[in-house]
């Protein structure tokens, strides 16, 4: 009989009874504190149900409201009772009604017997831990909290604000250093009795009565005065979620809890029948006799909390719809938008696909339809190439595409003929790599066989659209990686820009380019631009083109060879 249990209960008495019987069957005396707000009827039914269990007693009842002194008072009284009624007890284990022993109690007894002088209590100074949720950390100890956070939130908040304004700063008595930690501890008789019989206890109690959530700091602070050997960790596995609410374990956590090797876990959902059935009936040795290993669970929970707090970038769905500019990432993955390249190079798309291994689409936002790679009519499930569907929600179209194809780089062509609604979204997206050869839209016009007046009109329109897009891309709000060349600039030395773009796209392209795409024949393009000018439409986005290119006259008949670079 070396371990005694103090159990704080306020609900789910059926489960509490089960667990009490479990402790008691292993020879542990139990002192139970029942919340005073529990009705007399429920209380007497509970005491009746445990009448036949040996070494179980009930302590004086206090009203236990979350975050208030009552819980500490209850713990003190019950601890005093267990220490005085059961002189054999060496360790006192503080548990709640929703705690569930995961390993056979005998293993816990043995474990503690091997460490007779060790106190297991999580205890850290407030400055060192980022646990607190809600902004009150050091202030828990320097302000007064007479109002209930749950029932009198307005008064609570107002009074905190008032004290801040008045610069209230309570002194911690007797040179105590405030520590905090999990409410659930396991202390030795020596330490616990020292705390309870301290001559200055009235002073300490008076101070902690007005501290916020004293159950997480009273014993955690005082233990530092007396303990010989503190293990600053709780033997009770408990987890908190993003909002600081205790995580509840359900039936589906069975395997996770099994693997934790912890002695006790909380909070267990009262209706988790599988958990109670499994752990209360486990034969000894069902789990490995090892050190408790909450690390595994910690990792899983840390991941969940991170997911919850950071969210999944680029996902828009029924339970996640970030406001514009609040999203941590507009899209899920990096992608590239090319403007003017497919116009200037005959085989740009297949070449890019080969050079990078990325999925290279045509003009996704073309007015007729979305040109997916390899002429597919739908991408990854039901993302259709219908222009109507796409234009109904172009942002959604893009973010869906990038989300659905995570893991594979997406590249697409863009141009002033295409739907321009997405321009701002893409420009503000750090995942976007935008490369523009301005004025290249004139090349298809130049090579087309249309009436000149129609060409002139189209050119004016396209130039206006592209110029507006370039204004967006040059604004100070841009977060994408933007590169803009005029067409004249680009064809001077096409290799370098291409190499830079590919280097950025990925590791596949670490090697130097061995092959470049085939440029279209631009003989006569200068004259074409001049003709436009002569008609009063000044094309300026492509930069300065001589009327006749320098080499134009030399070898007009010989087809251009693809140039190779070593």
């Amino acid at each position: 009989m070396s371990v005694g249990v103090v159990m704080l209960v306020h609900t789910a008495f059926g489960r509490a009874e089960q667990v009490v019987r479990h402790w008691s069957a292993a020879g542990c005396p139990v002192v139970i504190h029942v919340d005073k707000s529990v009705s007399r009827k429920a209380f007497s039914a509970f005491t009746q149900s445990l009448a036949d269990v040996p070494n179980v007693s009930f302590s004086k009842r206090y009203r236990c409201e979350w975050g208030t002194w009552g819980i500490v008072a209850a713990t003190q009284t019950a601890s005093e009772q267990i220490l005085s009624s059961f002189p054999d007890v060496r360790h006192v284990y503080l548990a709640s009604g929703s705690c569930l022993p995961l390993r056979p109690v005998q293993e816990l007894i043995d474990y503690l017997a091997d460490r007779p002088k060790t106190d297991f209590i999580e205890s850290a100074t407030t400055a060192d831990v980022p646990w607190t949720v809600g902004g009150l950390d050091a202030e828990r100890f320097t302000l007064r909290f007479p109002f209930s956070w749950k029932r009198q939130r307005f008064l609570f908040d107002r009074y905190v604000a008032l004290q801040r304004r008045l610069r209230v700063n309570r002194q911690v008595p007797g040179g105590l250093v405030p520590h905090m930690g999990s409410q659930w501890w396991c202390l030795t008789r020596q330490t616990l009795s020292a705390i309870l019989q301290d001559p200055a206890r009235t002073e300490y109690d008076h101070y902690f009565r007005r501290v916020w959530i004293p159950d997480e700091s009273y014993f955690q602070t005082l233990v530092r005065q007396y303990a010989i050997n503190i293990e600053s960790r709780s033997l009770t596995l408990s987890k908190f979620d993003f909002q600081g609410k205790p995580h509840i374990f359900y039936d589906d956590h069975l395997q996770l809890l099994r693997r934790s090797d912890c002695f006790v876990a909380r909070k267990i959902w009262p209706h988790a029948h599988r958990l109670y059935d499994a752990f209360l009936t486990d034969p000894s040795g069902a789990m490995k006799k090892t050190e408790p290993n909450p690390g595994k669970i910690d990792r899983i929970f840390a991941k969940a909390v991170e997911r919850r707090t950071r969210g999944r970038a680029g996902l828009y769905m029924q339970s996640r719809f970030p406001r514009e500019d609040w999203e941590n990432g507009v899209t899920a993955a990096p992608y590239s938008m090319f403007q003017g390249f497919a116009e200037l190079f005959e085989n740009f798309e297949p070449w890019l696909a080969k050079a990078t291994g990325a999925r290279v689409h045509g003009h996704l936002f073309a007015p007729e339809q979305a040109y997916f790679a390899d002429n597919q009519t739908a991408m990854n499930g039901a993302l259709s190439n219908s222009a109507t569907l796409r234009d109904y929600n172009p942002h959604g179209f893009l973010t869906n595409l990038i989300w659905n194809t995570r893991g594979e780089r997406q590249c697409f062509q863009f141009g002033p003929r295409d739907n321009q609604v997405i321009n701002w979204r893409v420009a503000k997206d750090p995942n976007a790599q935008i490369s523009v050869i301005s004025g290249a839209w004139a090349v298809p016009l130049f090579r087309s066989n249309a009436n000149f007046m129609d060409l002139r009109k189209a050119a004016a329109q396209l130039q206006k659209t592209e110029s507006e897009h370039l204004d967006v891309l040059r604004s100070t709000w841009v977060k994408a990686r933007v590169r803009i060349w005029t067409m004249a600039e680009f064809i001077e030395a096409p290799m370098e820009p291409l190499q830079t773009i590919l280097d950025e796209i990925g590791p596949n392209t670490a090697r130097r380019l061995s092959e470049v795409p085939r440029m279209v024949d631009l003989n006569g393009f200068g004259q074409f631009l001049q003709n436009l000018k002569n008609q009063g439409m000044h094309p300026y986005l492509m930069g300065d083109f001589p009327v006749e290119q320098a080499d134009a006259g030399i070898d007009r008949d010989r087809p251009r060879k693809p140039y190779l670079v070593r």
Partner: protein
Amino acid sequence: MAPPTLWSRYKLRLRRRRLLWRGFRSRHKLTPVQNHTRQIAPTDILLFATVRNEALRLPYFLQHYRALGVRHFLIIDNGSDDGTVALLTDAPDVSVWRTDASYKSARFGMDWLTWLMMRYGHGHWTVTVDADELLIYPDHETRPLPDLTKWLDAREQRMMGAMMLDLYPKGPPDDQAYRPGQNPCEVLQWFDAHGYWVQRQAKMGNLWLQGGVRARCFFAKNPARAPTLNKIPLVKWNRRYVFVNSTHNALPSGLNRTYDETGRSKVSGVLLHTKFLPGSAERARQEQMRKEHFSNSALYDEYYDAVAEDPDMWSPDATRFTGWQQLLDLRLMSRGDW
């Protein structure tokens, strides 16, 4: 997004009160057939639905929601003639009202539901669904609704959103065999995993989620008319609440915040939509004739015609439904902290 002005909020308040009044007035249209509402305990989870000729779906529907932890069903029967009422009155945990009034002029049944929810739903967690909608959510098999609602209560969250997911068979619906009581997912094995799009509606702050198989097959030319898929099936009801447009949005508008705006995500569910069981073509023909289902029914003639032709909606891109875990992985629903 500009915050709503005082005036626009006041208009919403007026609208809510008008809808409540309509609901209150509509109580005369309902005739109780079987009223077991005295059995309802204060913490029971209640289910509200309006049905018409659902004898095929109801046996599994009741079974599914009983397993989830719904303790009492409050059902309005709108003129069924296929034994639906007999089927419902056989069950001890079902209360039934009957009405032959117009579904459309009762705001597609919402007025009747408003009254029943005002009368019986106050303070309860309520599930409001159609007979062809089966609610699921992450871990629903091991954590029934009382677990979820208690968890939501602890977080002061008063509702949970869910997305309607159209399930369909491979081949025309009428070629399938389904017997009442069978799990519809055994027949309707397929769904569209992608192709949903979402936007926010400023007026009441609700999302507008569309897409999926019906958008793909029937509304490709006019996506704006594609069915709305977001719903708010689970609400801790207050007698001052009211659903506005089916259960897609509600007032006060705080109820529409089923989604997170700060880059995280909230817990959500999926309503498995079993519309495309055998008989859906015949039903479409009847609904088209009754003109009771859309406020501007004529615009949906093409849709009805298409469904009435008993089409095969399956495509090589369809995904086979395997369970909630899959929907979670596909991000059609999410777990949040749950």
